């Protein structure tokens, strides 16, 4: 479940020399609204890259530029080491933010149609679609119309549709939206498997917990600008172990010790507190254990959510 060992920006990848995606100073405006502003990022082959940001930050616009639906107003997009061309797009699999399926079409017909458009032969497309449906528990639905499926099942169909042609680059806009936890795990496992097979995955999400578990690298964007990006572990390490997760029973007065705790967040089962600058965790441990029964006291890196909120709240330089 954790992203330990996800440091796959291995020497082999660097030896290949080119990133799967490289954006430099990409800009997109609609009328007078700047959707993406001087965004630069680099996605290495065989990694999972998370494009994170609040709603309206420019995530979807960025992804649409990558699959050629919209054209950037400025900057450069390199894909597989070359300027973006239509032939590159055939090597990509795309999952749009909301469902993009013909409601009246039968599931299997639809999947075959999508795969054929990506150049697969009919028989091969059908065989692969069947295999995927089996894997994601959709076999009994292949003959049903899309509109008869639940939202979550439609999302799975869409997911399969993006993968049938075995793309080298998979681009997914909010792939987990509308999914229950069981289905989320299913899709996440599928994505991790694809990564192991050497595929590059770019996904956008505003769900930080998911990104945290899945992504090797991230880019936080806000108001169209990249505010924070790079290797996720390195980013978190950069913030240091300034947080303490405490599970306790009894008096909570120690949490209001301003000298030691800058802020805290009560998650119900446990509290995550951020140490004040210069504060000593040992001192907090003494104080807390004197007042309450502790069942957990652990120094942790800040969660991505916290980093995100921090980064977004910072007036951008």
């Amino acid at each position, binding site marked *: 479940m954790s992203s330990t060992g996800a440091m796959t920006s291995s020497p082999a990848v660097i030896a290949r020399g080119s990133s799967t995606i490289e954006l430099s100073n990409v800009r997109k405006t609609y009328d007078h609204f700047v959707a993406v502003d001087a965004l630069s990022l680099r996605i290495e082959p065989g990694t999972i890259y998370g494009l994170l940001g609040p709603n309206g930050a420019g995530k979807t616009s960025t992804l*649409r530029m990558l*699959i*050629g*639906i*919209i*054209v950037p107003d400025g900057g450069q997009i390199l894909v597989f080491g070359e300027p973006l061309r*239509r032939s590159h*797009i*055939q090597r*990509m699999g*795309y999952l*749009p*933010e*909301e*469902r*993009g*399926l*013909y*409601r*009246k*079409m039968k599931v299997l017909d639809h999947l075959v*149609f*999508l795969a*054929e*458009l*990506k*150049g697969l032969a009919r028989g091969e497309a059908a065989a692969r679609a069947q295999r995927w449906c089996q894997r994601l528990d959709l076999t009994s639905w292949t003959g049903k119309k899309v509109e008869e499926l639940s939202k979550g099942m439609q999302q799975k169909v*869409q997911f399969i*549709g*993006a993968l049938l042609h075995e793309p080298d680059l998979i681009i997914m806009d909010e792939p987990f939206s509308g999914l229950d936890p069981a289905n989320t795990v299913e899709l996440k496992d599928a994505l991790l498997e694809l990564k192991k097979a050497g595929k590059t995955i770019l996904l956008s999400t505003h769900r930080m917990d998911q990104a945290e578990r899945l992504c090797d690298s991230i880019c936080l964007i806000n108001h169209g600008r990249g505010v924070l990006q790079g290797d996720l572990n390195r980013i978190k390490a950069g913030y240091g172990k300034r947080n303490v997760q405490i599970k306790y029973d009894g008096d909570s007065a120690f949490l209001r010790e301003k000298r030691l705790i800058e802020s805290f967040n009560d998650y119900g089962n446990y509290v995550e507190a951020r140490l004040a600058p210069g504060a000593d965790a040992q001192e907090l441990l003494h104080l807390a254990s004197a007042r309450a029964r502790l069942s957990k006291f652990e120094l942790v890196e800040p969660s991505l959510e916290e980093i995100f909120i921090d980064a977004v709240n910072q007036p951008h330089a």
Partner: protein
Amino acid sequence: MRNVWLIIRREYLERVRTRSFVVLTLLLPAIMALGFVLPVRLASMNTGKPEHLVLVVSSQQFGELVRGQLLSPKSSADDDDTGEQVTRDRRSAARYLIDLDVHPNSAENETLRSRLAAGTIDGYLWLTDAAVQAKKVVYTGRNMAGLTERSWLSDSIGRALVAQQLAARGVASDQVDQLLQPVQVETVRVSHGKAGKSDDRAMFFAVFAMVMLLYVAVIFYGVSVMRSVLEEKNTRIMEVLLSSTTSTQLMAGKLLGVGAVGLTQIGIWIVLAGMIALPSLAFYPSLSEIRISPAALASFVLLFLLGYLLYSAVYAAIGAVVTTEQEGQQLQFIIVLPLIIAVFLMGPVMRAPDAPLAVWTSMIPFFSPVLLYLRIAVQPPPAWQIVLSLALLAGTIAGMLLVCARIYRVGVLMYGKRPTLPEIMKWLKYAKA
């Protein structure tokens, strides 16, 4: 090309498999069959109860003459008229019961009127010598006499009068019949030096059938094109499709696929119509005289398809611009208007198929599917005009397709409000379709 083919196949199969396709395909011929067969059946059912007419005359002898003319099978002129054909069948002696009344006074008039009201007679004709002298006779009936009915009456009276006069001048009765034999006029149309029997009514019928088919197809499948564009827009299918194919391919595939659906449907209709019409020909002998040349049939198929593609493309463009179906319906007049204008132009074009009006209106792409076809059917225009008209039509379709693809390309990614015309013009400029 493969993509276009895949899209054609999808659009075709998805439409042909729908219930509405099956219903429309079977329902229309059923309605037409009812329209053809029912009147015939009803007419033959009516023979059980003949219409009862009374002739009020001054003399028994003149009354007999008129009755003889009215019931004579020759009484209706053989003028090669489909309507007349039917009425003649109906007018067989059994259809009418004609009594003579030689008491022309106002009391009798009242009596007849009350019998009419009571339903014991269906009508009476005031045919006294005075009335005949004044050249004005009055028919009083429960059903207002239709035009053919009226001409049947006046023709019969006229012939009776002539017969009476001839007899008075000593002409033998069989000679009278001979003299009264009507003259038949047959029209012969010369096209490309070959004489053929012309039938304006049949021509009009064939062209009108074309317009109706085009209209039904455009309205029904055009809306379906618009709806499918809207669906692609409102869900995000567009994004998925555009990551696999271009909007021009998408558009071309969509229109051709829908075009194929229309041709399939019309093919089925033609076959069914043939099956229904063949037995009906026995009742409508003159229908069998409608002869459509292979060239006219070929131009029918070609022009139907082109017209259909053109109008569907307009629907697709509307679909790309609007956000809801209701909004789209409001813009439908854009499509229906040219079709209506074309129907109004049919009359003048048919009368003078070589006049400048006909030549130039049949060049205008939105009219040419109807008007060029009409001209080809009536009097084949010079080849250059056909070629030019078809080229303009095809060019317009190609142009519409590109414009639609562009509007589609940009329009589908704009959600929410309907764009203004200047905005659409801007899209056209910057969309690299």
